[in-house]
């Protein structure tokens, strides 16, 4: 079996049509989880099979693909998925956010804002925002149908009662277009505001759980909160040690066994571009601190 025995972008056209129908429905009903007949992919469940199927269904020969994992183009799984599409679809790949027409991501939204010409594809492990409050699918589907989201507010309220603030740091639930509550996938809540009124089409694929959902361009996305406890972003209180950015999400890197650590941009392309433009750690002090 050579590579040519597989169709463009691996999936057969029948399957792609089935996935595209699910995507269209997902776009028509923002935030609603559309069941789809997810296929077994040649990479394991949990490695992004949902995102890969969505990408395969939307990819055309002229697309330029970027794949990130944890914000970086160089993490092994991002490399592996990028290679997969370079091989099966022969599309051009890039690490530059603005060059890409399709960006597949795991756990981050790029720092640079996206345009109408781009599609952001999220890999989703558990698409159901209510799952950890109610394990049964039959029950959660009913709750979505009735927009019965009180239990989620109670959970957030209990957080505040116990801890004084909401104790959800990632996969922070958000309301889409004033109707469905969705799980934005395990992105840090720092990224949640980027989903709101985003110019790009955002597609979410969950392979193992067989669900696709979407945020159409310029859709209102509101992270759940309370009037007296408004939603807060979180980032480590430091500039990037490589480029000095004070507005990017940071990875903490442990540099020795005596507890020394440093903080660097999680978005590797953003960090590189800044350094190319001459930003240094020292330039951080000159910039306004992150709000």
């Amino acid at each position, binding site marked *: 079996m050579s590579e040519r025995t597989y169709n463009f972008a691996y999936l057969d056209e029948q399957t792609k049509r089935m996935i595209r129908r699910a995507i269209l429905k997902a776009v028509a009903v923002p935030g609603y989880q559309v069941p*789809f007949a997810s296929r077994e992919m040649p990479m394991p469940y949990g490695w992004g099979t949902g995102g890969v199927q969505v990408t395969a269904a939307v990819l055309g020969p002229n697309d330029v693909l970027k794949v990130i994992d944890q914000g970086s183009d160089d993490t092994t799984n991002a490399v592996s998925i990028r290679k997969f599409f370079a091989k099966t679809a022969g599309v051009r790949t890039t690490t530059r956010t603005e060059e890409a027409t399709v960006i597949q991501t795991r756990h981050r939204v790029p720092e640079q804002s996206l345009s109408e010409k781009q599609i952001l594809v999220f890999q989703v492990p558990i698409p159901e925002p209510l799952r950890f409050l109610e394990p049964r699918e039959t029950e959660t589907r009913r709750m979505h149908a009735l927009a019965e989201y009180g239990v989620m507010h109670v959970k957030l309220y209990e957080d505040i009662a116990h801890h004084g603030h909401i104790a959800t740091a990632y996969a922070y639930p958000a309301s889409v277009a004033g109707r469905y509550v969705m799980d934005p996938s395990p992105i840090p809540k720092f990224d949640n505001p980027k989903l709101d009124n985003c110019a790009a089409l955002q597609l979410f694929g969950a392979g193992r759980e067989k669900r696709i959902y979407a945020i159409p361009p310029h859709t209102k996305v509101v992270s759940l909160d309370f009037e007296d406890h408004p939603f807060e972003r979180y980032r480590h209180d430091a500039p990037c040690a490589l480029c000095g950015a004070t507005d990017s999400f940071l990875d903490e890197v442990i540099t020795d066994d005596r507890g020394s650590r440093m903080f660097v941009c999680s978005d590797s392309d953003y960090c590189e571009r800044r350094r190319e433009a001459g930003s240094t750690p020292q330039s951080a002090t000159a910039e306004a601190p992150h709000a």
Partner: protein
Amino acid sequence: MYVAAKGGERAIDNAHRLLAHERRGDRSVPDITLAQISEQLTLGVDRVMNEGSLYDRELAALAIKQARGDLIEAIFLLRAYRTTLARFGASEPIDTGKMLAVRRVSATFKDLPGGQILGPTFDYTHRLLDPELCTRVPEKPVRARVETTEMPRVTELLAQDDLIERSPPPREDASVGDLTQDPLDFPADRDLRLQNLARGDEGFLLALGYSTQRGYGRNHPFAGEIRIGEVEVWFAPEDVGFDIPIGHLTMTECQTINQFRGTETEAPKFTRGYGLGFGQCERKAMAMALVDRALRARELGEDVVAPAQDEEFVLSHSDNVQATGFVEHLKLPHYVDFQAELGLVRRMRAEFEAAAPQPEMREAAE
């Protein structure tokens, strides 16, 4: 000085190269052939075909070799190949009543039409390691006089007296459910449940079946019948207009006979649990039958109180390719989530310490 890690691509290529080297093992030992795997690790091949949902001994043997004997990895390889195959139709239902049985046992009747056939079973072997196995050539098997007697299913014999529920009559127009083509929806019909169990992990079903025997959703089972043998597969191509045989499969079937106390409108009678799989897979088929019967709780008006009776729980967690993927994906990087959690824990600890009562000033001891 820290530099962002580069070179993931080369690391992956080199890891694959090392994997291939390790797979080969000591190069002075002859390479194992697919025929050896298929002929001598037969039951492993059967399991991979079963849970891989593809009846092809050669490909299953290749998958086992490629997976270095890791059967779940081999099942995954087979599944990922199967999903690319074109579907040209559904066969006619196989008729296990016409099976050429190499094994057929019933635990409910001492003798019955067609007789009891032990066949190639581990059941009465003494589990003593046998070093001679490495050198001795086994004797040829004893051949019995071939009697072509009918071998009716035990459950059909009981059904004649209405002592057991009858199988629902087949519907000619019924389409065949396929959870690989349509996402599973709850509540699921029995055809989809059985498909899910047939693809399900043997160990998972074994543990669930066992749990019903220990009281978690007890369903009083008897092994009504277990039969293993060859069945023909018939297919009716649309442009031909009649059925043609397209091959044969070795299958294992288990029918359990379970108690049912009856209701106000229905007399007490026995009920059925059903297990079926490719090749020789007795343990799997028996466990499947126990779990199938447990999952019929809702249909039979029984209380759903145990894990094995809980359709969503069982069907959502039976697939070992899904399970292994999601469990093992924990080794992928989670820096971002972890950093976000780390920030939260630090903040909560700072708040905890700020709120803690100040220790009283201790007087100097001396």
